[in-house]
C-alpha cells in the first residue's frame, strides 16, 4: 500500500496531513483553507481532522497572513501558508522580501524562519486576470528565500515534506493546471535532495530544461520529436533557488544543446540565468546558443489568448529545430 496513484493536489494534501501528524508545531494558514479546503481543495478535510487551532482560516489579508506566520515561526511554529492565487501574493511581497527572507541573517543566525508559502501558479485554466501568473523569478532573485516547484505527484508529496522540514523559508509554487494529473507516490521511498534536478527523460541530441507545469509539455515534445528521429533529454529543475546547475551541465555536456522552457516571461527569467551560467560552464561543449521559450513581456493575457501566450508543443519543437539547425 506504499505506492498509490494520486493527483498532485491530493499528493500535497496527504503530505500536509503527514506533516500535521508528525509535528504538532506545523500549522496550515490561509484564506478558505479550513471548511472549504481551499479553492483547489488542496487542504480538504484537514481542519475537520486537526481542528481550527492547527488549520487556520485567516482574514482576507495576504500581508497579514505572512506577517503573522513570521511571528508564529518566531514562537517556534512551522506555518505553511496558502496564497490563494499567484497574482495575490503581492500584498504580501513586502513581508516576504523585507522580513521573512532576512530575519535569519539579521539575527546573526540565532533565529530560524521555517515558513512555507504555497502558491498555486501558472496559466492554462481559463481564469480571470491575476489568477495565472508565474512570479517565481521575483522570489528566486531574493537571497534568503528558497523557491521550488514540483511537476508530478511524487515530487509534490516529498518536496512538500522537505519544504516543511527546512529551517529556511520556502516558496512552494504549485502548478495549478497539473493539480488533477495523476502519478505514483511511494510514501516509503527515500526522496532525493529538495534542490536537486532530475532527468525526467533521457536523450542524446538536446536538453530541454523546465520545471512545474512545463515539464509535461517538454515530455510531450520529446515524445513527438522521437517520432522525427530526435532524441531529447528532459531535465526537471524542481528548484529555482538554488538551481542545480551541475545536473543541467552534465546533461548539456552529453547533448551539447539546451533549450530552457518556462511559462514566466523570458526577459530576466529563470531561463536567462540558466542560459548565462550554462554558456559560461559549457562554452566549448555547446553546438548552439542556449535558447529560451517562455512568456512574453506582456501582462498575462485574457484567457481566450492564453494558448497563444503559453509555451506549447509547437513553440518548444520550433526552438528545438532552431537549435539543431546550428
Amino acid at each position, binding site marked *: 500500500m506504499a505506492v498509490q496513484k494520486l493527483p498532485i493536489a491530493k499528493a500535497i494534501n496527504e503530505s500536509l496531513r503527514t506533516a500535521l501528524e508528525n509535528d504538532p508545531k506545523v500549522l496550515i494558514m490561509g484564506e478558505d483553507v479550513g471548511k472549504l479546503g481551499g479553492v483547489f481543495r488542496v487542504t480538504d478535510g484537514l481542519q475537520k481532522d486537526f481542528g481550527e*487551532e492547527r488549520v487556520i482560516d*485567516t*482574514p482576507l*489579508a495576504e*500581508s*497579514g497572513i*505572512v*506577517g*503573522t*506566520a*513570521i*511571528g*508564529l*515561526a*518566531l*514562537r*517556534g*511554529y512551522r506555518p505553511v501558508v496558502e496564497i490563494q492565487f499567484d497574482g495575490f501574493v503581492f*500584498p504580501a511581497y*513586502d*513581508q516576504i522580501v*523585507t*522580513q521573512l527572507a*532576512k*530575519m*535569519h*541573517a*539579521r*539575527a*546573526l*543566525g*540565532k*533565529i*530560524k*524562519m521555517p515558513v512555507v508559502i504555497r502558491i498555486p501558479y501558472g496559466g492554462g485554466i481559463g481564469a480571470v486576470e491575476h489568477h495565472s501568473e508565474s512570479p517565481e523569478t521575483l522570489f528566486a532573485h531574493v*537571497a*534568503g528565500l*528558497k523557491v521550488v516547484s514540483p511537476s508530478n505527484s511524487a515530487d509534490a508529496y516529498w518536496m512538500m515534506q522537505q519544504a516543511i522540514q*527546512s*529551517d*529556511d523559508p520556502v516558496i512552494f509554487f504549485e502548478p495549478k493546471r497539473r493539480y488533477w494529473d495523476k502519478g505514483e507516490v511511494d510514501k516509503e521511498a527515500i526522496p532525493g535532495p529538495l*534542490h536537486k534536478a532530475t532527468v525526467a527523460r533521457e536523450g542524446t541530441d538536446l536538453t530541454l530544461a523546465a520545471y512545474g507545469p512545463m515539464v509535461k509539455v517538454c515530455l510531450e515534445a520529446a515524445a513527438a520529436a522521437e517520432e522525427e528521429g530526435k532524441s531529447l533529454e528532459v531535465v526537471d529543475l524542481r528548484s529555482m*533557488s*538554488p*538551481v*542545480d*546547475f551541475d545536473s543541467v551541465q552534465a546533461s548539456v555536456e552529453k547533448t551539447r544543446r539546451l533549450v530552457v522552457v518556462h511559462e514566466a516571461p523570458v526577459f530576466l527569467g529563470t531561463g536567462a540565468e540558466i542560459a548565462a551560467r550554462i554558456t559560461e560552464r559549457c562554452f566549448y561543449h555547446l553546438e548552439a546558443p542556449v535558447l529560451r521559450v517562455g512568456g512574453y513581456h506582456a501582462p498575462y493575457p485574457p484567457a481566450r489568448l492564453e494558448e497563444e501566450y503559453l509555451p506549447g508543443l509547437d513553440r518548444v519543437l520550433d526552438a528545438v529545430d532552431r537549435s539543431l539547425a546550428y
Partner: protein
Amino acid sequence: MTVESTAARKPRRSSTGGGKRASARKPAPQKSTEPELIQLLTPEGKRVEDAKNAVYDAYVADITAEELRGLYRDMVLTRRFDAEATALQRQGELGLWASLLGQEAAQIGSGRATRDDDYVFPTYREHGVAWCRGVDPTNLLGMFRGVNNGGWDPNSNNFHLYTIVIGSQTLHATGYAMGVAKDGADSAVIAYFGDGASSQGDVAESFTFSAVYNAPVVFFCQNNQWAISEPTEKQTRVPLYQRAQGFGFPGVRVDGNDVLACLAVTKWALERARNGEGPALIEAFTYRMGAHTTSDDPTKYRNDDERVAWEAKDPILRLRAYLESEGHADEGFFAELDDESEALGKRVREVVRAMPDPDLMAIFENIYADGHALVDEERAQFAAYQASFADAPAAGEVK
C-alpha cells in the same frame, strides 16, 4: 500646549492648501491635538487625584520610592545614552541615529510594565524599551554603525530586532501572540509603532488578526506628532486611540510624557492580554524633541514654539519635581546618577569606537539555515578573489 502647536502649524498648512474652494470642502478634522488623556503626574510633577483614573491608579498604587527612583534613573540614563549616540553620529562614528529624546517616559513606563516572559517587538527607536529589557545599549549601535543589520539574539531578552520598514513588526507581534495563546502561556506581547505607521496596511491588518484571534498583544503607539516631516493630521482624521474601537478592542490615550501613567496603562493592557481578554491599543501622546533621524532637519518643517511648549512637559523634569516634593530622592541620589550617566556615555563612546568592521566573509553568513548552492559557490569565489590579493605584489614593488 497642544493648542499652541496647532496654532503654530496653521499658517503653513493654509499656505500649502489647495485654495479657497478646496479648503471649503475639507471636512473639519476632529480635535486630535486637544487630547483627553490619562495623566497621573502633571507637567509640574503633581500627582493627579481624579476618580476617572481609578482603574489605572490601582496599577501604581503600591509603587515604592525606590521604584520611582528606578524609573527616573532609567529615563536619565536612556537620555544620556541617546545623547551620546547623537554625538557619535555627528563625529562620524555612526552612519545614522534615530533619537528618542522626549519619548523617555513612554518607553520606560511601558517597558517597565513588561514581564521577563513577555515579548517585545520594537521599531528602530525603542532604545528605552531595550534598556528595560536588559539589552546592552551598545548592541543597539551595531546597525547604525554599519557592522550588522540587527545584531542581537532576540530570544536572549525577548526583545526582537529593530524593524525599519514601517509597521511590519506589528504583524510579527500578532503572530507571536497567536503562538503564545496556542501554547497556553500566560505571557503577553507588546508591539511598538509610531503615528506614521498607523497609516500602514500592516498595522490595520495586525489589528484585524489580533482581534479575530483574541491574541494577547498590546499595541503601543507613540504618537510623537511627526512622521519625519508629516504631522499627525496627515495620517489620520480621528484620534489614533479611537481606531481600536472599530476593530473591537479598547483604545486608551495616555500622557506619553508621564512615566507613571504609561506604566499604569501598559500594566493594565498587558494584564488584560494575559487574562485572555485580547488586544488593546495605547496611544502615548508625546513629542519627538529632536529630528526623526540625524538625516533630517526639523527646522524645515516645524516651528521652535512647538518644541518650547513641549519642553515644559519634559518627562524627566516632571518626575524629578515629584521625587523632590515627596522627599523620595535626595541630592546624593541625583549626584550619583550624574556620575553614572557620565560613565555610561564614556563606555558607549569607547565601545563604539572599538567596534571592529565585520569579517569580509560575513557577507555570506547566515543567509540560509540549511545552506544554498549559489551562496556556497559565490562565497568560494569571493574567498579566492580576496586571497588573490595576499599573493599580489605590494604597492610599488617591482616584479
